[in-house]
């Protein structure tokens, strides 16, 4: 009986010691909360929140340097998710950072493009293809609709085109029931 207790206690102690050692030896740098917040953010890298991308914004939220309502592409749904994750109160979207728009992609008017490469440098996700003095084009599947390429274009040949519903993007609509007054 006593041996059994000693053996089990010894085993538990040994494993505990190994795990404790491993926790220090194999410590992984990195903030798990930042990863979680970053996973919720829409990854448009648009910078409308005032930070240079989604990851820095997530970092700022985790450190308490930013509010959760600064992300227009995410919209209210995202703010609800962030509020749930952080145990914070829901706040309506801060209009100073912009208003949510329908999801759209940039399209380059290829007749007008002069091949200046300014938009390729502005694109945060490398969705614009083209070389100097060659016509540029946008890879629609990669474009996040952040509008950062609109401002640098010297000939204003880029415009935003809302993404319509297609077989790939169609989703079930939320069920909406008309409220009727009970007799």
């Amino acid at each position: 009986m006593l041996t059994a207790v000693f053996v089990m206690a010894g085993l538990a102690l040994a494993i505990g010691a190994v795990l404790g050692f491993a926790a220090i030896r194999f410590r992984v740098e990195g903030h798990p909360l930042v990863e979680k917040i970053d996973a919720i953010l829409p990854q448009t890298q648009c910078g409308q929140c005032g930070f240079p991308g989604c990851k820095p914004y997530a970092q700022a939220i985790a450190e308490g340097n930013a509010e959760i309502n600064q992300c227009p592409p995410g919209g209210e749904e995202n703010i609800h998710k962030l509020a749930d994750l952080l145990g914070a109160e829901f706040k309506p979207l801060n209009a100073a950072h912009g208003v949510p728009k329908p999801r759209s992609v940039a399209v380059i008017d290829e007749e007008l493009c002069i091949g200046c490469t300014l938009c390729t440098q502005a694109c945060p996700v490398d969705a614009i293809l083209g070389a100097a003095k060659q016509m540029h084009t946008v890879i629609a599947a990669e474009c996040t609709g952040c509008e950062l390429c609109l401002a640098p274009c010297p000939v204003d040949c880029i415009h935003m085109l809302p993404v319509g519903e297609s077989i790939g993007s169609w989703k079930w609509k939320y069920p909406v029931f008309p409220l009727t007054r009970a007799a």
Partner: protein
Amino acid sequence: MEGYLLILVGTVFVNNIVMVKILGLCPFMGVSRKLETALGMGAATTFVLTLGSGTSYLVNKYLLGPDLAYLTTLSFIVVIAGIVQFTEMAIRKTSPVLYQVLGIYLPLITTNCAVLGIPLLNVQAKHDFVESLFFGMGGALGFSLALILFAGIRERIEAADVPGIFRGSAIAMVTAGLMSLAFMGFAGLVK
């Protein structure tokens, strides 16, 4: 050498841990919805089971012995949980890619009955160290095989026109039963 091969074939096909011994059904039903998750779970289980059967053998042989044989179940649970935690930490530090593949499945395996069952069967069958390793690896490969086959079938079933009352778990159970029957066909493979 031939003995090891027999153990391997025997555990993968003839005594398949899921299909014939009916162990580890929780992950078998739980993570078999998609082929990728089945692959990840299979790889993680193979890793843990091979390591676990080796370590459990050592614990049983040198720490417990015949006097404390009644402690095998208890100590194996502790040892396997410890190993899984340790591997998870080590992999996370040394190989982020592998961690992404196996990471979320490793904690799931800690309390998997297949992972506890194989070391206990090892003790029952009085395997030596290398035999234990092969038995563990074979069992895990058999588990992966069953899981991957099942996931493949379930992906097809998702697209099939299944009658309303059979959708979801019901048809999965029927499928698992039929697969189990199919695995019985291996029964005479190893004499």
